[in-house]
């Protein structure tokens, strides 16, 4: 019987040592000079529904909308780590067009950021659109992005500048059906600044390392464009939003409320 007891005791030891955790948190290596890749996955939805082209979505005021174009500009991406240190992606490369057409079969649009400083990041900050500093660099200072934005239909003229968000489709209200809907919101030269920044906390720490490629899944609720901080109605003139000094700031403020970090992956 003794032998059985020893056997059981041994088994118990094995079980307990096998399951005990060696340490809490990631091992703190020297991160100096180390960098890694971090991927942002933008995922557009309307409420709890995945966004799909051609689908009719209802909004406030008994109105609905259907889109065939959905894109916006993201820029000045930066991350804050646990020590409060901020890593900002290099300015010349730090501007992206998030185009729903570029989505994979799950409707996610990837932004891959290389050479991000290795650190434990707790939040992300990014701008929606183009800030005045970048605009002040002039047409020459925009690099390849000017051509890209032009090809994507995200420019008016150089003088007027970029369209920060572009929604094209149709809307219906209680009195009208399938009317054209075009939201082309941006700053207007230097006269009207609609650039906004958002800071989003990560639900879990993002560990950037040379051998880790974390992913940040960002959910964008397109319903917030019309029902964000302010609810607007298409029939009140928000079916065509271009350079209007009253309408565009409201849309810009609404868009700044549509982002959320749904979850992160640490590989």
């Amino acid at each position, binding site marked *: 019987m003794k032998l059985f007891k020893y056997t059981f005791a041994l088994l118990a030891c094995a*079980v307990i040592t096998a399951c005990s955790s060696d340490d809490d*948190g990631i091992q703190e290596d020297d991160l100096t000079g180390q960098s890694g890749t971090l991927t942002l996955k933008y995922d557009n939805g309307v409420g709890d529904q995945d966004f799909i082209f051609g689908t009719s979505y209802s909004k406030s005021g008994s109105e609905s909308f259907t889109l065939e174009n959905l894109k916006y500009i993201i820029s000045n991406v930066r991350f804050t780590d646990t020590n409060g240190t901020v890593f900002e992606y290099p300015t010349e490369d730090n501007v992206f067009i998030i185009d729903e057409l570029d989505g994979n079969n799950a409707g996610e649009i990837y932004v891959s950021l290389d050479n991000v400083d290795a650190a434990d990041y707790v939040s992300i900050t990014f701008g929606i659109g183009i800030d005045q500093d970048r605009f002040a660099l002039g047409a020459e200072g925009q690099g390849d992005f000017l051509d890209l934005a032009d090809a994507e239909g995200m420019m008016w003229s150089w003088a007027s500048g970029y369209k920060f968000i572009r929604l094209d489709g149709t809307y219906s209200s209680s009195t009208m059906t399938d009317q054209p809907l075009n939201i082309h919101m941006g700053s207007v030269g230097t006269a009207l600044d609609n650039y906004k920044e958002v800071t989003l906390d990560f639900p879990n720490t993002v560990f950037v390392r040379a051998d880790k490629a974390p992913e940040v899944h960002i959910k964008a609720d397109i319903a917030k464009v019309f029902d964000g901080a302010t609810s607007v109605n298409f029939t009140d003139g928000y079916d065509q939003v271009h350079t209007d000094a009253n309408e565009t700031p409201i849309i810009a403020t609404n868009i700044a409320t549509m982002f959320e970090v749904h*979850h992160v992956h640490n590989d």
Partner: protein
Amino acid sequence: MNVLQNIKYIIIAVLMVGFAKAEAHNHANPCTRHEPFKVLCDLCGCSTSSGSFGFGTLSNANFVGVRYIYQNFESRNGIFENSPISKETFNTYQLWAQIPINDSFYVTGSLPYQDLTRDFNGVTENLNGLGDASVIGWYKHVFYKKKSDDVVDFNNTKEPTGHSLQFGLGIKLPTGQFEQRLADNINPGFQVGTGSVDGVFSLGYNYGSDKFGVNTLLSYYLKGENKNEYQFGNQFSYAVNFFTAIPKEKMNIMPFVGLSGDVYDSITQYGETLSDTDGNILNASLGSELAIDKFIFGASYTLPVSQKLFGNNVKSKQRLSVYVNFAL
């Protein structure tokens, strides 16, 4: 000295566990990549050795046998309510046994072979291979009828009451291989093993008479870490089966009904809890065993009664289990 030899084997097994544990930390585990499918490793493919599936036969007989388990799941591939659904089919072929050591001790073990299929967007993926093996050592305490002091009884054999308790202590080994396939968009997700060494603690209560019996089993799984300090949530499993015996001329028919379930803690990584990774499920089962000579044939069908698994990203659909055991 059969008994002593058995003990040697157990000690060797324990040592091997130690090595396996050291090795487990170096495993590349694709379970850690992408959700929601990573949870399937824990829930579906790898959990067929868990207590809610049962470790043995109704009558708690010693046996060696084979078991086949068929399971269906549906998983949401995305973060939205209308995100596309993938359908998973899990076929598990299991060698399982309950081996006696002496009157009070026995060992149960299972070695699964997993054959998993996933349909998503018209693409079918298949993954198969050896799954995670588990071994549990049991101590069985049988309750005997009290003898009256007044009666002088020369009959030395004790009479069992039919009640018994079982205490189990065991381990699940990362014998299943991992395989990282396909690119970012579609994630293999479902795996044949968890990559972790898990501890198993079980408490069972059985009652069996000639006509009627009940088996209850509570198990707790202490999950180990695998690569990147990724740790599945600890799991509590419970199962209760009521059975009756219908003796026939050449066979014994034992139909049973049962309830079983699992409660999962959240998954942690780097000491942080990951959201929407806990869950619970309650199942109802209906089945029967058929004992002919030394053979026990069994079949059961299981449907979920209620479930909330991993933020409702995973839905269990049904489970079918058939087995053939040879009583020892």
